[in-house]
């Protein structure tokens, strides 16, 4: 279980250099490596055989978390451990920490990055669903230096497929601060602790002045479609006070609407039940966080 031959390894110092390094290779022959926690598995099992590996570790402009007008910019090369430990990520942004705390294991969190996870967009992964749940915007730069911004929904096309071109780099993920008081949460279930999500649920809500749900975003992880919104639940939550009954109703709707697959970890009915039970727990803490309650 060793990687197939790699012809070239480069470690550019800037995004421009990194993009330039793709030149001379056909699409997909040159690959960017971020934390490598997924790509290395694929290379070692020889499911992918890049001729050239472009290591993004030295590009400082891709790292770190900063804020502007309340929005958070998370550099694509920001490691899970940095997100898990960033105490600014509360309220509407708390789901990021919920997820980052439980991705893989300590060693993976020390190495894996949020950008890598979103660009790999594995079918059972936490970060894509959380970024989608929080209404994230993906900032990309192309070989000609031009930049564009894509919503998480448009970016995360299908498992392993994203809107990123092979010679395009994800710079950062921007999570805008919504109007009003917001709260979010994320939780997943796997057979063993912190396993890849058999089902993961991210809920982000905002409250109006009467503590009623003004906006709601719900994203699911672990279903065969990959990260996607659960609009049924969103519609059911808006306008409610986030009480147990309303939440239960919303996630019954989500469970019934879900295109859940059965596998060795959970049959269809159990997956739907996980959407129900996880959703209720997650939505409850999202509302509590929005209302500013201590957990």
């Amino acid at each position, binding site marked *: 279980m060793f990687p197939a031959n790699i012809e070239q390894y480069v470690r550019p110092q800037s995004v421009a250099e990194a993009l330039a390094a793709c030149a001379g290779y056909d699409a*997909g022959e040159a*690959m960017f490596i971020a934390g490598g926690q*997924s*790509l290395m*598995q*694929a290379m070692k*099992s*020889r*499911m*992918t055989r890049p001729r050239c590996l472009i290591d993004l570790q030295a590009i400082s402009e891709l790292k770190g978390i900063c804020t502007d007008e309340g929005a958070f910019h998370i550099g694509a090369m920001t490691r899970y451990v940095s997100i898990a430990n960033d105490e600014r990520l509360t309220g509407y942004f708390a789901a990021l920490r919920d997820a980052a705390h439980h991705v893989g294991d300590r060693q993976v969190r020390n190495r894996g990055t949020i950008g890598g996870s979103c660009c*790999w*967009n*594995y*079918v*059972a*992964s936490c970060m894509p669903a959380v970024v989608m749940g929080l209404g994230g915007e993906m900032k990309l730069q192309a070989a000609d230096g031009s930049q564009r911004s894509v919503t998480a929904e448009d970016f995360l096309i*299908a*498992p*392993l*497929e*994203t809107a990123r071109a092979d010679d395009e780099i994800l710079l950062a993920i921007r999570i805008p601060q919504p109007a009003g008081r917001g709260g979010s949460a994320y939780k997943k279930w796997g057979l063993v602790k912190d396993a*890849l999500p058999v089902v993961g649920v991210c809920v982000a809500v905002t409250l109006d002045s009467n503590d009623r749900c003004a906006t709601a975003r719900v994203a699911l992880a672990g279903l*065969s*479609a990959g990260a996607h919104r659960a609009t049924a639940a969103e519609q059911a939550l808006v306008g409610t006070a986030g009480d147990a009954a309303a939440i239960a109703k919303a996630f019954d709707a989500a469970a019934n609407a879900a295109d859940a*697959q*059965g*596998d060795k970890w959970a049959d269809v009915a159990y997956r739907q039940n996980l959407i129900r039970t996880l959703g209720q727990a997650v939505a409850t803490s999202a509302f509590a966080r929005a209302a500013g309650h201590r957990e």
Partner: protein
Amino acid sequence: MELKQQIRINAPRARVFAALNDPVLLQQAIPGCEGLTEGEPGHFEATVAAKVGPLSARFKGNMQVQDLNPPVSYTLVGEGKAGPAGHAKVRASVMLEEDGSGTLLNYVVKADVGGKLGQLGGAIIDRTAQKLAGDFFARFEPLIADPATATADEAGATAVEAAAPGTTRQPTWGVWYFMAAVSLALAAWVLLH
């Protein structure tokens, strides 16, 4: 895995059937198809470069047409190999119904993926297969609508009707076999993380 679908194609049945038997047209329609060639009569070989996101594989396969009943139905049986990555076995049944000016195309693909591919495959396979089917028809429909190909198709159609079952030289199998095999291959890749 088993994949069942019904698609309405806005073209008469004979033309659809013929188009499904036109190697040139199929090669254009099958995502990543690098070529279809006929070996000994009724035995066909083809290569498809499958790609999903960062992962890719090259499939070589062969397939045979069975129970040919133009322009209504036929069955395709075959298998393909993706080198050390594994193999796929496919059985596809196709049935065309007239539907006004158009055609209802029903197909059932039963495919088994083995080797590393199969081990890494899983529940996601059906979904990816459907997606590929979608891609195929997105490319297929405009091609038959294109009058440049239409005449050739009509000719193909008569050829098919003339052909005795089992001895057909029509590489119809190409679409179904490769859609299934490739879908499964891709789906399997997808399961890597």
